[in-house]
């Protein structure tokens, strides 16, 4: 039997570390383990995925987990972004764990499996560790408890090991250990049915010569980068207070992503599909006409 866990979060929320803590904890229990992150847009706020597999026998699997037994979601706002792939394979997952205040509205909104469990890690992480985005330990503790195969002692040793590897000071590690215990003891353990490495059935397609245009990696309609919604990486949202704005145009000139245009009257209009939330505009605005609104809770 192999248990497959897939972790989702945003860059900076500790998703890779969560997968490692669970990996190390399972390793300390004596299981065969494999864990790995996927590196993509390695930046703050962008969607990040990591995996942990563990089981009694050698793990004859590698790479991404398409059909996890457990999906662990550090940031509920990722559900709104299909490109983050949070729901991939949820049909066969035994459970979904959401870091959220309550599961019900999200289950309805995103047609999640009814076996979705929510727990507000952000609030407790903020209270105990002092940093709302430091979710790694909470996510790992929730996972360890839900899968039911990792005792608290091994979880805590793994938390200590992994945080030491990241050179966290002893005080911060102690707070994280408290958080781990609290989360671990607040959640139930679930039954995970044994199953083989499940796959989406696929058909083979043969590849023939398709001509120069279709056979070479050129782009004819340029400018399609617009279709990549980098606004999904945003943690904070800049908002212009038009009462105060003097139309100086500085923010329009300096936005590193070209996400600001000027309307007919010279007022800045922010393109939220592409604004990455760097908040440079806010810093630059000479009259403080740009305000910041937090969009992601765990930050």
């Amino acid at each position, binding site marked *: 039997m192999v248990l497959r866990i897939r972790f989702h979060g945003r860059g900076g929320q500790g998703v890779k570390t969560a997968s490692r803590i669970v990996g190390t904890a399972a390793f300390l229990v004596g299981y065969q383990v494999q864990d790995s992150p996927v590196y993509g847009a390695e930046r703050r706020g962008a969607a990040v995925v990591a995996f942990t597999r563990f089981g009694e026998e050698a793990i004859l699997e*590698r790479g991404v987990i398409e059909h996890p037994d457990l999906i662990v979601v550090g940031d509920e706002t990722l559900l709104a972004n299909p490109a983050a792939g949070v729901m991939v394979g949820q049909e066969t997952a035994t459970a979904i764990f959401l870091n959220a205040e309550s599961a019900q509205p999200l289950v309805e909104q995103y047609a999640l499996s009814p076996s979705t469990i929510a727990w507000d890690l952000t609030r407790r992480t903020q209270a105990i560790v002092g940093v709302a985005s430091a979710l790694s330990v909470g996510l790992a503790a929730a996972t360890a408890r839900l899968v039911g195969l990792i005792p608290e002692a091994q979880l805590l040793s793994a938390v200590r090991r992994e945080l030491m590897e990241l050179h966290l000071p002893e005080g911060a590690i102690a707070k994280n250990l408290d958080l781990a215990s609290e989360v671990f003891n607040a959640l139930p353990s679930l039954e995970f049915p044994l199953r083989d490495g499940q796959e989406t059935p696929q058909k083979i397609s043969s590849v023939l010569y398709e001509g120069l245009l279709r056979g070479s990696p050129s782009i004819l309609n340029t400018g399609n980068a617009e279709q990549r919604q980098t606004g999904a990486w945003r943690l904070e949202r800049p908002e212009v207070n038009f009462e105060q704005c003097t139309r100086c145009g500085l923010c329009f000139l300096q936005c590193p992503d070209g996400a600001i245009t000027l309307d007919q009257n010279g007022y800045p209009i922010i393109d939220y599909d592409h604004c990455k939330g760097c908040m440079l505009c806010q810093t630059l605005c000479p009259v403080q006409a740009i305000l910041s609104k937090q969009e992601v809770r765990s930050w």
Partner: protein
Amino acid sequence: MVRMLLTGNAAAAWGARLADIDYVPAFPITPQTEIIESLAAWFADGTLQGKFVTLDSEHAMMTAAGAAAATGVRTFTATSSQGLLYAMEALYTIAGWRAPLVLVNVSRGLSAPITLGPDHNDVLAARDTGFVQIHAETCQEVLDSILMAFHIAEDSRVWAPVLVNLDGFYLSFTRESVDIPDEAAVRSFLPAYQPKHPVFRASQPMAQGVAVLDSSIYSYFRYQLHRAVENAGPVHAEVSARFQAQFGRPYGAIETYDTDDAETLLVMAGSFATKGKAAVRHWRRQGKRVGLVRLRLIRPLPVRELTEVLSGRRAVAVLDQSLSPGLGGILYHEIAAALAASPQRPQVLRSFIGGLGGKDISQAEFDYLLEELETVKATPYFGQPELLFTERDRARVRQQLALAGKSPEGG
């Protein structure tokens, strides 16, 4: 011995650390950088004694590595993909010098189009350089192979550089359980480096890598290099016997998985062989007599071992994670050539290409491969290499081509 979870990159760094390396010339490239970062940290905090130098390119890095090895110090370096190709001139050069060092390559598909995922076109481009080539499947094998590689490189019968390959992402960034052997045990397996041949030393003038304008002399030295790399076959066998005696883990030039009674065999290399083993396990449960052969030593090519294990089988598929345009799978052609002299060679030897740029190989693709072997629709040898590709892959391509403004019909 300590058992830990290590990434393939960390296992590579541990291998170098335990080998007590003296010199590391370094240049970063994804997905290799973690190896030199780990080594840099150990040199900085005094765990490793010796010299860690950052160079300005892979070409300079490889040249520095060869020059250092020529002075008789134990030398380690690592690169990947475009970096390996940029160093290509130096690879031939230092192999020609007979500089015994260890180079780790973290496989990554070659540009263009640019990618980060692994395949073996990069490392197989180095197959004619005069480097011995070992391909690892697991993080443990990465560490173990580096220890063995120094042994092989420094053996007087070889005295040539050794390349250890691991796949990017699938091994480089994946943690698995790894036994880190004790330093004392490693020292007894791989003693401190004592070159038995003349090397550059102060007040001991000599010349290496000299110009040879005479073609007979050139031919002679290149052929000597061939003999040396050939010798690495039996030396590998000896070294792995010693390794097994000391650490308990066996490493053949090839690894066989469920081959004993198999009528059909699948040949693979690298970390994707794990997926191949899962496919074999799946087929075995259906009562099919299928096995897998993993090529670990690629230079020298273990012709005898391959011939022995593949001969007498009904059908064999070589699943290459590489593609030589105009020819097909690189290992397929090497294996077909190796089998030419065997009267019992398999009736069917088919070529499949999979996992290019790290594309996953699903069970459906493995099933297709087996079905093709069983039905033998095409020529039994040297037919068109078939790309393992699914409708889903096709849909992704279609979507991207549309984005790029290409018509759906072709042209």
